[in-house]
């Protein structure tokens, strides 16, 4: 576990400090002028100018951002992509439904809307109304695919249990999933949630597999950057936050708003801190998953982009950099495969930890100790943790 955490933190630091430090900063500074950055304008202007040089940050941000097209590849300077359905809610005009192909990749406006390419692709209403975009974007479509996959895999596995009976050895995908489900139950749910763990198992399993499968789908070349989108991680974090809030018991709220055994003066300091920490928990969940997956995507794309950056300098340098870039990106892919599972696990585990804190029973010390196999030496007051075959002071 230690090495995995190390790797994920390594990639995070690497991504955030080296890559984004350059490309991000570039973008932000250019954006802060409240003007289109030069390279972004290139996109709006068309392909003729753009092809002069390779713009890595444009490619990278094009990939990690959401889009109303599923871009597959460029053929003769023309993008080959699936146009996805656009659904817009206009406060006056109501719901609008049409294909993104009407925008012709931002060259045309349709029905009073046009596509704007900032750092993100965005539909803007020309009458300046605040519209809400419910389009089936690339991310939404990717998520729907993952949903179909999840439902199909999990229900077929569940059917297998019914068909083959309980006491037969698991086969096929059932065999692959069972240890994962067992791991979530034994390493995540039971230690954090205690005897009430069964109530939260469906939530934890859904969170874990939803994040994991979307992380993996995002790793497929051409895939969407779904879990590296802050709206997605925010939504998931909100769900786990709501679960935590609604399962909080009297003990939890009591300790939050009226910590026992604390002087009144300190209470004024402590309660706000406690309330802030309550809200920091889901925010940390949101940012952790978002940053990890986003960083992974950025690193892989950056490494691939290096081939073309060097290629733009000279063809020899471009070809010369291919093995280095490939080796590094293969390494990164493997790392991302790990990170995909680890981040799903961490999100699930922290959800379990937070919910566990919320449903923790009041401490009746003797009872609690008896429950956990802890024994208190009456003479010395020393706590011993007694497991099966060892005693740890």
């Amino acid at each position, binding site marked *: 576990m230690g090495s995995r955490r190390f790797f994920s933190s390594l990639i995070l630091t690497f991504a955030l400090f080296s890559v984004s430090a350059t490309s991000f900063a570039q973008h*932000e500074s250019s*954006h802060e002028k409240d003007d289109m950055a030069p390279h972004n304008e290139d996109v709006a202007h068309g392909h003729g100018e753009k092809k002069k040089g390779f713009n890595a940050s444009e490619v990278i*941000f094009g990939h*990690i*951002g*959401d889009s109303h097209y599923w871009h597959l590849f460029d053929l003769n300077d023309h993008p080959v992509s699936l146009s996805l359905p656009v*659904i817009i809610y206009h406060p006056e005009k109501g719901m609008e439904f049409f294909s993104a192909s009407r925008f012709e990749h931002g060259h045309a406006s349709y029905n009073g809307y046009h596509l704007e390419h*900032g*750092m*993100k692709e965005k539909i803007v209403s020309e009458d300046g109304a605040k519209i*809400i*975009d*419910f*389009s*089936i*974007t690339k*991310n*939404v479509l990717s*998520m*729907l695919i993952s*949903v179909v996959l*999840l*439902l199909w895999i*999990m*229900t077929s*596995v*569940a059917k297998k*249990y*019914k068909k083959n009976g*309980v*006491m037969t050895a698991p086969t096929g995908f059932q065999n692959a*999933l*069972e240890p994962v*489900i*067992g791991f979530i*139950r034994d390493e995540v749910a039971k230690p954090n949630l205690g005897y009430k763990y*069964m109530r939260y*198992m*469906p*939530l934890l*399993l*859904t969170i874990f597999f*939803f994040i994991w499968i979307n992380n993996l789908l995002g790793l497929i070349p051409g895939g969407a950057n779904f879990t590296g*989108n*802050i*709206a*997605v991680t*925010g*939504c*998931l974090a*909100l*769900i786990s936050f709501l679960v935590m809030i609604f399962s909080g018991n009297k003990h939890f709220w009591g300790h939050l708003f009226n910590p026992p055994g604390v002087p009144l003066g300190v209470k004024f300091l402590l309660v706000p801190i406690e309330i802030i920490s309550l809200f920091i928990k889901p925010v940390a969940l949101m940012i952790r998953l978002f940053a990890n997956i*986003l960083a992974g995507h950025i690193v892989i794309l950056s490494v691939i982009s290096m081939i073309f950056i060097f290629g733009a300098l000279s063809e020899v340098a471009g070809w010369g950099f291919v093995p280095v870039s490939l080796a590094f990106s293969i390494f990164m892919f493997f790392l991302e495969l790990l990170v995909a599972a680890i981040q799903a696990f961490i999100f699930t585990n922290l959800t379990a930890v937070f919910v566990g804190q919320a449903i923790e029973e009041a401490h009746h010390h003797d009872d609690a100790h008896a429950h956990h196999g802890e024994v208190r030496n009456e003479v010395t007051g020393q706590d011993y943790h007694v497991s099966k075959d060892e005693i740890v002071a």
Partner: protein
Amino acid sequence: MELLTPELGLFVWTLVAFLAVFFILRKFAWGPIMTALTERETGIAASIAAADRVRKEMSQMQSENEKLMMQAREESSAMLKEAKETRDRIVAEAKDLAKIEANKIIADAQLQIQQQKMAAITEVKNEIGKLAVDVAEKVLRTQLSTADAQNHYASLLAEEVKLN
């Protein structure tokens, strides 16, 4: 910063999809899978407990068997010993009895021999007496065949009978 501002559309879609997945899977996947896993685990635990119990019983039975075997061995050796003793005793008794019997027979035989010897001796004595009487008769007959001899012997006898 645009990267950090969530889009409401994607947020709503995610929420809807996640909740749908959650409720569908809870009913059709997680429920059955978790119950199956729990059932299997309790089943396995029960079988292990049963196996353990059987093993304990087996070892208990084994020790009992061993005890029984030991007892049987002890019993058999005791029986053997007893049998040996009995045999020895019987043999000794038989020997004693035989000796007594033999002695009795010998004594009887000796008595009979003695008696027969005595009878034989008596007969021999009788025979000898008769023979002697016969011889004496014949001698007397020849000596006293004449009248003179008879007279002479009568006068001899008469002489011996002296009337005091």
